[in-house]
């Protein structure tokens, strides 16, 4: 039961989304007044859902919330704000064309607007920002400070930060932590959502670890070790095993050398990654999402500029070549977002079945006309082979369920008779049957001698399917190894930002790690 110094107490919280996804399965969560509390977990653990419930953005399916000992029912974020709870999201909610000052006072009634008070607040908290600069001209770190200041000005004393360091440079991160400690001294309570072990250890007082919608444990940070947290975060029962023969890798088909790629925000998303994928093997890239995997895939598949380094496909330098040329050479790309990238939802199944290969001789005639007969036959073949449930080849792709949309993408990509298959999050959001189906196909492709690059945030998936796996963190590979040679603890540590070299002999020589 909560004690006197408990400021937030969430009891037995269950959240089932309308589509049936169970995000939280009975979570108890407690935060003490004036502490920095870490909320740790992988993708899909339920961290953000839990905090959205606390900040009034989502309503729990069941469960109770107590703030300062009193039971509350938030219907909106503004009600939570009245209780002093505010959340700073990963994607900041500022108006770019407005100045920092305008953003802070946005939506407040005139009588509470007081520029002096904001300036005082800047002074006492150390959150220095140029009040009259336009937000669009400011770097991300400063924008985040504006958002925090905005919350503080609204008298927030329970501040929730969702993965606040994702887009920050190391120096900005340091400054943020300084600010957080400062706020703590002033009696503010901070909840810090993250998957980065080092940050949890550095800045928090206590940590709650979530895994698949359940609390795995609550620990005092001072008593925690990275290994312990890693194991709590990752350790899991394996749902099902996929049978596969040992790999017989051949020639290197896809080689990436010292690749540097920028993110949409302009910072480095991929920082000098090198690896090779051999024919007849599945090379997996694991890691918490947002650590540069998407940018890496886009750079390899011709969709994002390579700033430095090389991509070599079957011995030919294809750096910064357009996708159409890569496809001609035998690249298949199952993109991570089937709706945004992989399909034109308002086009028909037939039209989508040739996207990217629509200029093949099979599909166009002498007048540059589309040979619909052949295209329809092609679409029907994919539908049959991949058991896609569709009202017909002329139905819009939008009318298919998510799983069938994905099968359509996979079917199309494999119909290219590829040499290399780049599969990003190939089973995301699919039901068990569709997931298993697509995983089996990837293994079959491998057995047929194709090179498969698999990027997935689903750890089970990468570890089960891959013959070799790399763990990516902040744009770098923390290590490359065979999955069976890694312990859960080691994987968790690498996902949380520890390099494999640092992990050697962890069990026998723990001091090396602690010293780092």
């Amino acid at each position, binding site marked *: 039961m909560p004690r006197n110094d408990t400021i937030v107490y969430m009891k037995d919280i269950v959240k089932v989304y309308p589509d049936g996804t169970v995000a939280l399965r009975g979570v108890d969560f407690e935060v003490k007044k004036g502490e920095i509390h870490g909320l740790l977990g992988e993708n899909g653990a339920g961290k953000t859902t839990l905090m959205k419930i606390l900040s009034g953005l989502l309503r729990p399916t069941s469960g109770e919330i107590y703030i300062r000992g009193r039971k509350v029912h938030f219907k909106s974020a503004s009600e939570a704000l009245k209780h002093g709870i505010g959340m700073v999201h990963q994607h900041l909610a500022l108006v770019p064309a407005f100045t920092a000052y305008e953003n802070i006072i946005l939506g407040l009634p005139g009588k509470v607007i007081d520029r002096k008070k904001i300036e005082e607040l800047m002074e006492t908290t150390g959150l220095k920002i140029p009040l009259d600069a336009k937000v669009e001209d400011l770097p991300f770190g400063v924008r985040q400070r504006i958002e925090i200041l905005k919350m503080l000005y609204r008298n927030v004393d329970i501040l929730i930060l969702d993965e606040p360091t994702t887009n920050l440079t190391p120096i900005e991160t340091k400054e943020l932590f300084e600010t957080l400690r400062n706020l703590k001294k002033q009696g503010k309570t901070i909840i810090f959502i993250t998957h980065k072990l080092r940050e949890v250890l550095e800045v928090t007082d206590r940590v709650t670890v979530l895994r698949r919608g359940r609390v795995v444990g609550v620990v005092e940070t001072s008593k925690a070790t990275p290994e312990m947290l890693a194991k709590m975060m990752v350790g899991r029962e394996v749902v099902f095993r996929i049978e596969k023969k040992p790999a017989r890798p051949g020639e290197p088909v896809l080689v990436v050398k010292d690749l540097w790629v920028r993110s949409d925000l302009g910072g480095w998303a991929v920082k000098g990654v090198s690896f090779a994928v051999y024919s007849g093997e599945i090379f997996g890239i694991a890691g918490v999402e947002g650590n540069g995997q998407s940018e890496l895939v886009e750079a390899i598949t011709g969709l994002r500029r390579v700033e430095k380094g090389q991509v070599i496909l079957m011995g030919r330098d294809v750096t910064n070549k357009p996708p159409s040329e890569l496809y001609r050479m035998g690249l298949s790309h199952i*993109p991570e977002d089937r709706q945004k990238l992989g399909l034109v939802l308002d086009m028909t199944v037939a039209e989508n079945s040739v996207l990217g290969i629509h200029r093949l001789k099979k599909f166009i005639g002498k007048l*540059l006309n589309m040979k619909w007969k052949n295209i329809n036959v092609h679409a029907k073949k994919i539908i049959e082979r991949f058991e896609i449930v569709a009202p017909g080849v002329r139905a819009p792709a939008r009318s298919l369920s998510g799983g069938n949309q994905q099968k359509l993408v996979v079917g199309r990509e494999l119909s290219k008779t590829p040499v290399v298959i780049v599969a990003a999050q190939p089973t995301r959001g699919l039901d068990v049957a569709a997931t298993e189906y697509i995983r089996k196909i990837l293994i079959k492709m491998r057995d047929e001698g194709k090179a498969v690059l698999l990027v997935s945030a689903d750890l089970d998936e990468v570890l089960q399917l891959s013959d070799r796996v790399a763990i990516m963190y902040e744009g770098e590979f923390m290590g490359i190894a065979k999955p069976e040679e890694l312990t859960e603890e080691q994987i968790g540590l690498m996902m949380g930002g520890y390099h494999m070299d640092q992990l050697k002999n962890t069990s026998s020589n723990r001091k090396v790690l602690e010293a780092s």
Partner: protein
Amino acid sequence: MGSLSSLKGKLVLLKGTLEKLVEIIFAIIVGFVIAGLMMYMGGFDPIKAYAAMFETSLSLTDPYYIAMTLSFATPVMLTALTFAIGVRAGLFNIGAEGQMYMGALGAVIVASWTLPGPLYLPLAFIVGSLLAAAWGLIAGLLKVLRGVNEVVSTIMLNWIAFWIVEYARVYVYPNPIDASKTISMPPPGRLPLLIRGTELSVSFIIAIITVFIVYYLLWHMVLGYEIRATGLNPTAARYGGINPKKTMLWAFIIGGIAAGLAGVSEITGRPPSYAITTGLSNLFGYGFDGIAVSLIGANHPLGIIPAAIFIGALSAGSRGMQTTAGVPLEMVKAVQGIIVWALAMPGLIRLIRRRMIRRRGVEL
């Protein structure tokens, strides 16, 4: 199973078409009722006015009226294609007006040459459509190379074209006999009339053929496939090996050609002037009317044909409303405006909503 599910698909398609049809009929009723109320309040008899409008546009008693309707429908059918192709490529190309002026200028330039008779027509069409395509391409290049919004650039280019052509009318190609217009297309360069004594010429058939060519291009050719993919989802198009910039340029060029044909056909196929008249009065507005036509026709080539004829009927019928029902020109224009507005609005709203959703990067 297969046939059953395909039947289901057809039913869904049918339902969608029916819903569209109901929407259009409802919009027509709303437009006519509101415009009728306005006329009633202005002291005119709306029933009489509408009867006169119908009588002088679609009634079969005298082929003259139908001919008038179709000759009004001809240019707007072509300029509607410009807008429709733009929409299919994800563009808001409202430059048909200026491109049409350029097309007409091209025809007048050819008319000023001394040529063997049979060369006038093909050359007028080639020069006119090339000039218009080039004019469209300017907006395209600005967009693709410099990121200039095509709405802004095409509006500005419309006015630049207006004054260039007006200048050419007065100073470069004035008619030596009649100062109110340019040099006329010599008789061998004129399209034959379909019905004697009317304004309806072969240009109407050219417009219909163009509509079908554009339809074929959009739905049965690789370029059309790429244009539609780009318009519906540029990110996926890029993933599909399509170069969205190149596709957009083509959409501007083809749209420009369509608008150019409208301009050329006004010079080669519209009695009595066969020339550009003062203040471009025999051209002015067809480009903008084309936008309404395209929206009413759901930005689909085959929808554009009935929509253009509808707008043509409104234009042709306006004369009867004035002469028979005594409604003044201003009121007639307002009535037309309200009806067009009611019909075009649902399509416009859908279009704007889609653009806004895309800008925010959200899929509904």
